[in-house]
């Protein structure tokens, strides 16, 4: 029931919004709808907390009509992502500024995106999963290309093709898996999980899945779409991308790579973990000298999600649980980060770090909020990222000490680039662009409130997430 609501509500809202008249009304409607969704997903979360081993099911055998089996299952892992989605989407919707005159289609596309994202996280049938996975691309493509900045058109095409190419690899893997299931073949996750794959079967499977996810996440060296797309898309699009959509790839790792390619993950990690690790360092190092705030966020994100991938593939429970927790945290943090970016760009019309400065002296509230978000990104203890990164590195350490130590370098690098960026933007003397910087209004602060609550809630009491996962991660 909850699943049905979670899927149908945004879909209908989206269809309704496509016929909307004014942007403001549509925004209000979309915001309300997404809040309702959030409430519903919280109910789902509550049910699961009561019994973490259980899962919410939705099964309707419509294969004869739809061609796919409507098989949904929300377990503890899924609910985290569903809640992440439903938590962030209202913020993203609310963040649009009145001055930007978004048409109703904009909100319709966001709601459609939400449908697809929830679908991805709730699907328990491979084809269904794939459908939602691809469906998610369409709205974000339009959002990016239509409301994006310069070159948005070209870049969004590159983005779309790049990711579609990646997901085609996944399609190959799915189809390959399908042939391996005992007759009558089936696409349901459960039938895949029951497979006992031999090592030689796992290798191509792993490669295909890994490629697909690596492009989506993105991992080095498949990240080149990311920076450009973040840079080109409107900030809401970037938030959707970085906050939620990238998690699809990581979610895929949790759902498929780890349970299905156990042996490859166990034996081959030393081949691909260094690659990911290099990407982690790479992103962080580039962020140090990145002159544009948005690109900096992109590279920081590249580095952060790389760490998550490291944790997930580290063959240890700590790594996996920490990775999942960190996915949630990263979603929250990066959206917060983008919001800060948005606040700056909205007021100063520039995101060049060197043109900014001295904001802290005119906007103390903003400085505080931004500082909290920066610290969350730096993974300071008691913020949400710390627990996740700690567990990830712990997991990685128990797998391979050298890798963990190198990965640990990021906690230094992240401090370097984050503080450098914060210092240059917020501190120092005021500049022309920041002369008339207005501090956050009440409405804008309200945008940050849920994010800050999430940052501290997860940082101080992560156990509710971790214990939720306990029954599922094995």
């Amino acid at each position: 029931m909850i699943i049905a609501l979670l899927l149908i509500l945004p879909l209908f809202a989206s269809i309704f919004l496509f016929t909307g008249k004014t942007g403001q009304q549509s925004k209000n409607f979309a915001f309300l709808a997404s809040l309702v969704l959030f409430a519903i997903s919280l109910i789902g979360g509550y049910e699961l907390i009561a019994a973490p081993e259980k899962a919410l099911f939705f099964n309707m055998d419509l294969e004869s009509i739809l061609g796919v089996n409507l098989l949904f299952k929300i377990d503890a892992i899924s609910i985290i992502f569903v809640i992440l989605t439903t938590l962030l989407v209202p913020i993203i919707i609310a963040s649009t500024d009145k001055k930007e005159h978004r048409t109703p289609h904009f909100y319709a596309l966001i709601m459609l995106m939400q449908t697809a994202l929830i679908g991805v996280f709730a699907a328990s049938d491979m084809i269904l999963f794939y459908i939602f996975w691809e469906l998610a691309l369409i709205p974000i493509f339009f959002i990016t290309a239509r409301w994006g900045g310069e070159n948005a058109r070209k870049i969004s095409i590159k983005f779309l093709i790049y990711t579609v190419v990646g997901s085609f690899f996944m399609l190959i893997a799915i189809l390959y898996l399908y042939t391996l299931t005992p007759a009558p073949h089936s696409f349901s996750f459960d039938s895949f999980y029951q497979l006992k794959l031999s090592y030689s079967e796992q290798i191509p499977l792993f490669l295909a899945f890994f490629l697909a996810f690596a492009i989506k996440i993105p991992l080095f060296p498949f990240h080149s779409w990311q920076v450009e797309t973040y840079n080109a898309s409107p900030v809401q699009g970037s938030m959707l991308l970085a906050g939620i959509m990238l998690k699809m790839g990581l979610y895929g790792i949790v759902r498929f790579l780890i349970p299905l390619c156990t042996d490859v993950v166990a034996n081959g990690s030393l081949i691909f973990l260094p690659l990911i690790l290099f990407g982690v360092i790479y992103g962080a190092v580039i962020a140090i000298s990145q002159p544009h705030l948005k690109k900096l966020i992109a590279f920081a994100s590249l580095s952060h999600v790389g760490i998550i991938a490291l944790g997930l593939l580290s063959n240890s429970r700590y790594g996996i649980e920490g990775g999942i927790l960190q996915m949630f945290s990263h979603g929250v943090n990066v959206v917060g980060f983008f919001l800060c970016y948005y606040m700056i760009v909205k007021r100063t019309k520039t995101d060049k770090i060197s043109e900014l400065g001295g904001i802290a002296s005119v906007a103390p509230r903003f400085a505080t909020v931004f500082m909290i978000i920066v610290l969350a990104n730096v993974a300071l203890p008691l913020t949400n990222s710390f627990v996740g990164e700690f567990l990830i590195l712990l997991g990685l350490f128990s797998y391979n000490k050298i890798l963990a130590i190198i990965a640990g370098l990021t906690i230094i690098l992240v401090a370097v680039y984050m503080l450098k960026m914060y210092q240059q933007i917020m501190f120092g003397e005021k500049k022309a662009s920041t002369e008339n910087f207005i501090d956050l209004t009440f409405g804008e602060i309200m945008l940050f409130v849920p994010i800050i609550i999430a940052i501290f809630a997860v940082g101080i009491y992560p156990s509710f997430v971790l214990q939720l996962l306990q029954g599922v991660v094995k």
Partner: protein
Amino acid sequence: MYAIITISIVAIIVLFFGAFGKKKVILPIIFVGLPLAFIINLMGWNQSIHYFNEMYIDDNFAIAFNGVLIFITMLIFVFARVYYKSVKRPLEDIYALILFSLVGGLMMTAFGNLVMLFLGIETLSLSLYLLAGSKKSDPHSNEAAMKYFLTGSFASGFLLFGIALLYGACGSFNLEVIKQYVVQNQANIPAMFTIGLLLMAVGLAFKVGAAPFHFWIPDVYEGSPTLITTYMATVGKVAAFAAFFRLINASFSEVDFLWKTSLIVFAVATILIGNFAALYQDSVKRMLAYSGVAHAGYMLIAIIALKGNAAGVLLLYSVSYSIATITAFAVLMMVRKETGSFSIKSFNGLAKHNPTVAFAMTIAMLSLAGIPPMIGFSAKYQLFVSAIEQGQLPLVIIAIIGSMVSVYYYLRPVVAMYFTRSMVSEPFEAAKLYKKQILGMVILLLILSFIPGLIILLI
């Protein structure tokens, strides 16, 4: 069977009224006659009647494909009204030729004898040659018709030679008898049989537009009047595929080692050439032509898979491909009417003033590209599944690579429509004419997207 008769009669009535210059009644007659034929066609459902010594077999396969063909033709006529709006004369000849070729198509789906196959192919082809050249004043149309005719009759020669050799080996044209021969002589198939089979396959591969026999397609599709191109790309292709499938399925399924490799080569070449060549096209019409080639490659996979529900999958694919193609061509016709060009540039900024049209084009492109949740995706994935169940994973991988490539060119019109500055500042005049029809197509596409399973299980 009775559908053929109905359609023939309708065609003759059309000719009759046209001869007396009664322009206004022609299309209404067709719009009565084709649904009638559709219903009559459906009445034979689940009965599998064999007519005239198994010349014509009205099994579910035939009925389903005939239904699709008739339905597509109806859609074509829907757009014909708008396409030929400016033409004064009754056009009974063109309409009649379309109907005649439809008869040929129906024969191709339901043949039980190679004679019927041959006659069906020729009826369809001859009408299409003529239709391709029906815009006499246009050198492109002439050229298209000529090229089509030259290559087509050449291919017919091979087809016939193949039939002759096959006959020499088996001594019959009846599919059932050939099958028996095959079953009995599975161990020592004479070379003549093989050659005959392969030459027939070549002939049919030409008709479906599979590489390396696809060369006529881009030129002919581009040169023909757009409405006719639409018809060729849909009815012509679907009928040819139905015929191909029926031929292979009815007689040669036991000796798949003879033809499978060749077909796989065809399919691979078709997918790659079609998709890659489409990348560079500036003319949307030609791009769609290459897309047609590429889709022929995918549909060949259904024939290669053959077993299981391949027929249903082929049906689904045909439906998805045809409806999306018609939608795309319909939009193209409109754009061409307004801008006088097929170039991708003429799509620039279409979405601003013609959102419905742009949306329709987008849906069609996404469907053709096989992006979920459009029907094009369901069709592709069902196709891949059935191929993979027959152990054709490498082929499927190639097909998927082709799909990756295709995303690019299918997106170009979308991008042009939505994200490029428009040259015109007001809604297209023609859009008013088209709006209802195009909206209908969109709704059809969307509805179909939710019932792919139903279509597959038809057969």
